[in-house]
């Protein structure tokens, strides 16, 4: 099995930073692993012809309006605004715990979800748990601010099992990173 090459990645990042790669593409690469940073607000997006969408907590999506904070085994639990897959909470794991024998991916896609209790936006890292067959429960596919693979850190179709011993997808967690600004 191919292991995640930490040194290789570091080198690639540094090469990028020092050399020809623009800040945009560095951020794009970085974004892949920016579980501790809200990736899309950092992207210097050039907008050709669309108004800036309202991303304030007030600009609630259909998901956010129906979200709840009590039951993390339901697809409408507030943190799941951009999750795609089986909920680890239904598979023997928890909201930020992999089921026994699975391994959390150190890198992930991210979402910005609104907690209905305080109306604030939080950054959520959707860490896949890897190395076991698909858990066949609680499939959810929410897509708030979810984009395509050219913005990979915001895409929830990718099998986010980089750096794990196995890339087999088991289930997904929703780890609270912090308040989004």
């Amino acid at each position, binding site marked *: 099995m191919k292991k995640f090459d930490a040194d290789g990645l570091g080198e690639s990042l540094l090469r990028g930073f020092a050399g020809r790669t623009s800040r945009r593409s560095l951020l794009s690469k970085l974004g892949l692993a*920016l579980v501790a940073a809200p990736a899309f607000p950092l992207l210097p997006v050039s907008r050709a012809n669309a108004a800036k969408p309202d991303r304030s907590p007030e600009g609630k999506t259909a998901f956010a309006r129906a979200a709840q904070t009590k039951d993390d085994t339901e697809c409408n639990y507030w943190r799941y605004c951009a999750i795609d897959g089986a909920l680890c909470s239904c598979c023997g794991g928890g909201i930020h715990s992999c089921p026994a024998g699975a391994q959390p991916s150190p890198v992930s896609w991210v979402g910005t979800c609104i907690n209905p209790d305080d109306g604030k936006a939080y950054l959520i890292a959707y860490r896949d748990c890897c190395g076991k067959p698909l858990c066949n429960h609680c499939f959810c596919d929410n897509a708030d601010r979810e984009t395509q693979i050219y913005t990979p850190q915001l895409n929830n179709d990718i099998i986010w099992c980089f750096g794990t011993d196995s890339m087999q997808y088991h289930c997904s967690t929703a780890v609270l990173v912090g308040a989004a600004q």
Partner: protein
Amino acid sequence: MTLAAARVLSSLTILALMTASSAVRAQEGETSEVSKMEPPKPEWVFVRGGFGSEGTSIYDTKTGKMKGMVNTSASSDMALDPTGKFYYVSETIWTKGNRGTRQDMVAVYDAIDLKLQADINIPDRLLVGERKQNFIISDDGKWGFVYNMSPASSVNVVDLTKRKFVKAIELPGCAALMPNPAVGFSALCSDGSLATVTVGGAKPVITHSAPFFSATGDPIFENFQYDKAKQQTVMMSYTGLIYTATLGATPTVAQPYSIQAAAGYAAADTKPLAVDWYPGGRQPMALHRPSGELYVLMHMGEYWSHKAAGEEIWVLDTTSRKVVRRFPLKIPAAHIEVTQGAEPMIFLNEEEGGNGIILDGKTGKEEHKIERAGGGMAYTMPAS
């Protein structure tokens, strides 16, 4: 998380902070964790995904909740370690999925962290829709026996303590293994006999009982029930004859009796153009060992309907030889298993819709419904 992954994460966090230090209040962040299992409990049921599916889901029959999953590959066989320390998976994997080099092995998973401990290479094994009787463990947890047909019939003996393959024993004309603590294992044969294989010596010794059933006329379901405490195996034929074998160096098989007769009907038989209640399904029966009650999936039909899903559960008291309870099912089920505690819980796999159903074994009351529980064979931990 691996050490390497942790290093990546920490170095990336630093980079992230360099470029985005104000964007996140990092102190609020959660860390990712990995759950651990308890040792296998009597109230758990282990449910295979079904033909071609991977993964064996573990559910708590008291709550209906999933506890975890054992990594079973397609066409593998799982066995529970009687000592509760490991889950064993005898499996066959090609290096390129459906092509490449064939690899047969027994994978060993720790029961607490569910991590792979070892792959024990074995020569070969039979690929078939799930069968419990193709991979069994001795009562003391020290020996694994893996059935093989390639296409000659044999059994691979695996030393689970040393984690190595020991030898293959040719077993012509027989299959469907059960532990036989006195000597090694026993098996059913196409001549209607029970074979008993003495494993310990320099050369394996195979003896046969007198033939007692017809392998083609009224076959005994492989889904027989071995009872470690009594060193007995309760078996059932397609017509519903119940046979009890007492194991040992020279097993004996008691005269069979009819489950239909035990319910007040005439015994069913093999004649065409006759309708009766018959046992059937892919896992047609389960023995609650502490009480000696046998839970059997029964359906109305004609002979050779032995794979038909059950419309009722008949609970046969094997001591009084009476059917003591009958539970009609809303949706027919092809698999039945029962937990081995004092309060038995029944697990069923519904034939249509893919739900798993948990019933109270005493009352038949539906306690939980588990969507997509898994379409395959169900297991419970034998009484310790």
